[in-house]
């Protein structure tokens, strides 16, 4: 039995923070930053880990420095937050309100693929730069040609799947993955379906045989039939395109069934600090979506600040990218001022110094250098596969669950 004192302390901190309602100071010499994301509804759990703490951290740090650099002077930042209740209608209303009632100078991209895309036409109409982080799609080209100010920081569906395929192939090449049988499951939700659909041909092209392929609905309470069937197929590798509750649920079942595989991958939330805390030593060797380089000085400083300001550690993937999106915004404002169209042009044309390292955007407004796969290695979530980031660690083989 393990206990997790830190999470309990965090709960206490979160409750006091939530009770002290934020008081909004209105002043004309402030830069108003709008933020719309779920605080309730199905995506609230993820947004609470990845989105909101980074907005708070960034605003806190900018103001501690004396404000944003704007046209040679400094302006303090004021954040206006709205809860969209994980409902696209509410996201649209809130962005509209930010744009026309609150006169927000800039708006942080919403959270989740669907909510980002629902908001895209409004960001476009009011010329807000739309630095989408938590929106993984293969429609980047279509979307960025329709919405010129929409940028994609976290990567595309295919790139993510390719990352996983590459990792498994690499393990095969060095002999740590001794077969080509893959058991694949996915959560039956747009995200899981998209990844699974992209994965089938890529796995086959790479010479893998998918010996078990199924989906389960979001909110499934008992994943043991899934895991039992996956185990019965005797795979060499297990891949789950999963969401937070089932990422935990599948892993727990894998431990109970003692699933013997050389590579075990679950997607979203594997990189959450709570995942490492929950499974401890059993997490060792588990692969997950996205990654970071926890040893880089920039990330270390960021993680320490994140811990200090928000009371929690950042996750090992989109947290840092969310923060980086705000750095891109900050640096663009410093360079060209508050003119939103100029900021969009600047984002397109420039290279930024972010917590992830240098970042720039291609002709489709997509960041091409990102982490695709990470792995829990001795208690730390390490990036192991990337498309142009430094510091990837060698992949280790999954050795049991003890």
């Amino acid at each position, binding site marked *: 039995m393990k206990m997790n004192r830190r999470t309990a302390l965090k709960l206490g901190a979160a409750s006091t923070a*939530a009770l002290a*309602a*934020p008081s909004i100071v209105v002043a004309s010499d402030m830069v108003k930053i709008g933020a719309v994301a779920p*605080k*309730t509804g*199905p995506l609230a759990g993820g947004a609470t880990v990845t989105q909101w703490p980074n907005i708070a951290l960034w605003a806190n740090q900018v103001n501690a420095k004396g404000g944003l650099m704007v046209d040679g002077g400094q302006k303090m930042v004021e954040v206006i*937050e*709205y*809860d969209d*209740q*994980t*409902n*696209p*209608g*509410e996201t*649209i*209303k*809130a962005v*509209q*309100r930010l*744009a*026309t*009632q609150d006169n927000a100078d800039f708006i942080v991209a919403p959270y989740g*693929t*669907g909510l980002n*895309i*629902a908001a*895209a*036409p409004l960001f476009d*109409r009011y010329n807000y730069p739309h630095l989408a982080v938590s929106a993984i799609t293969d*429609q980047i080209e*279509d*979307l960025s040609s*329709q919405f010129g100010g929409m940028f994609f920081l976290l990567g595309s569906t295919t790139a993510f799947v390719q990352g996983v395929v590459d990792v498994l192939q690499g393990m095969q090449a060095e002999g740590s993955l001794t077969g080509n049988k893959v058991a694949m499951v*996915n959560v*039956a*939700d*747009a995200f899981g*379906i*998209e990844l*699974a*659909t992209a994965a*089938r041909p890529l796995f086959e092209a790479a010479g893998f045989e998918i010996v078990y392929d199924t*989906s389960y*609905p*979001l909110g499934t309470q008992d994943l043991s039939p899934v895991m039992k069937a996956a185990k019965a197929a005797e795979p060499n590798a297990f891949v789950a395109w999963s969401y937070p509750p089932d990422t935990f649920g599948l892993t727990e079942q894998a431990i109970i069934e003692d699933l013997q595989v050389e590579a075990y991958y679950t997607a979203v939330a594997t990189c959450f600090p709570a995942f490492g805390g929950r499974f401890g030593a059993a997490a060792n060797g588990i692969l997950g979506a996205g990654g970071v380089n926890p040893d880089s000085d920039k990330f270390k400083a960021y993680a320490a600040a994140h811990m200090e300001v928000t009371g929690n550690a950042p996750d090992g993937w989109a947290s840092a990218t969310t923060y980086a999106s705000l750095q891109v915004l900050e640096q663009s404002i410093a360079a060209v001022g508050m003119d939103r169209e100029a900021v969009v042009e600047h984002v397109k044309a420039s290279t930024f110094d972010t917590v992830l390292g240098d970042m720039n955007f291609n002709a489709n407004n997509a960041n091409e250098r990102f982490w695709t796969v990470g792995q829990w290695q001795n208690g730390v979530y390490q990036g192991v596969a990337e498309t142009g980031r430094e510091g990837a660690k060698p992949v280790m083989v999954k050795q049991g669950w003890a």
Partner: protein
Amino acid sequence: MSLTGKEIQGVILAAIALLVVGALPYYGSDYLLSLGITIAMFTVLATSWALFSGPTHYISLATAAFFGLGTYTTGLGFESLPFWSLVLMAGALGAVLAALVGLATLRLSGVYFVIFTLGLAELIRQLITWGQNMTGQKGLYVLTDFTEGNLYMMLVALASAVFLVGWLIGRSRLGFALRIIGDDETVAAHSGINTAQAKVLLFMVSGAVAAMTGAILAPRYVYIEPALAFTPLLSFQVVIMALLGGVHRLWGPIVGVIPFTLILETISANFPNQVTLFIGIVFLIIVYFIPRGFAGLIEQARSWSQSESMA
């Protein structure tokens, strides 16, 4: 048919109101327009809901099922078919689904119908999700050139149609039959009214309208996935707004929709961290203190003032 003087007066008033409301995109700000869309959407949904539930006393929680069906009709067909035909098709599909559900369940009473309709949205959502998974279909991107103004006008047109249909039903044999059913179903059956048929017909109207609303609004959401299209919250919002307004008058729901939307807007603008909490409190206030709805209050006030003036 002939209209009485009072009815002509009503028609003129309605026409003026329609003109003022319909022209909103030409004089209102974008923000007002996005509020207007929400109000128009819930007016359509709540009024058509009350058309069925007012006289029959059946609480339907299937609005989300029909609405989602409509958004999917648009999502799947907008690239190959003209938009207006999709809206009509959504209406037809909604009516068919409502007929099936109605024939199967309207003999159930009260709470069974409530839970059944609630489960329906969930069942359809699960089936669509599963179907998507089987075919490898992803979330649907509905990229169109419609502006908020276009969508708003369509909703206002649909709302006018709903009011017209409601008014006609009120004058028709069907409306008469429904009022008797609402008062006492046994009496209605004895006086030769086909109660099942009347209820199913009304449920079809209500289902068709909700599906058409979903079809019209799909381009606004741009990206459609089952969890968002079939959200059960929508069904509850429609019920509470209709009840807040009052379901015994055709104009009842609209006097619920407008204040409720504005209250919600105020809450989410001012208390972003406590939206759910405040929505819950507003819900309770309505249930406990305004059980007969605003329409009830207005009529009470009216009859009170009339008796005052007579005295």
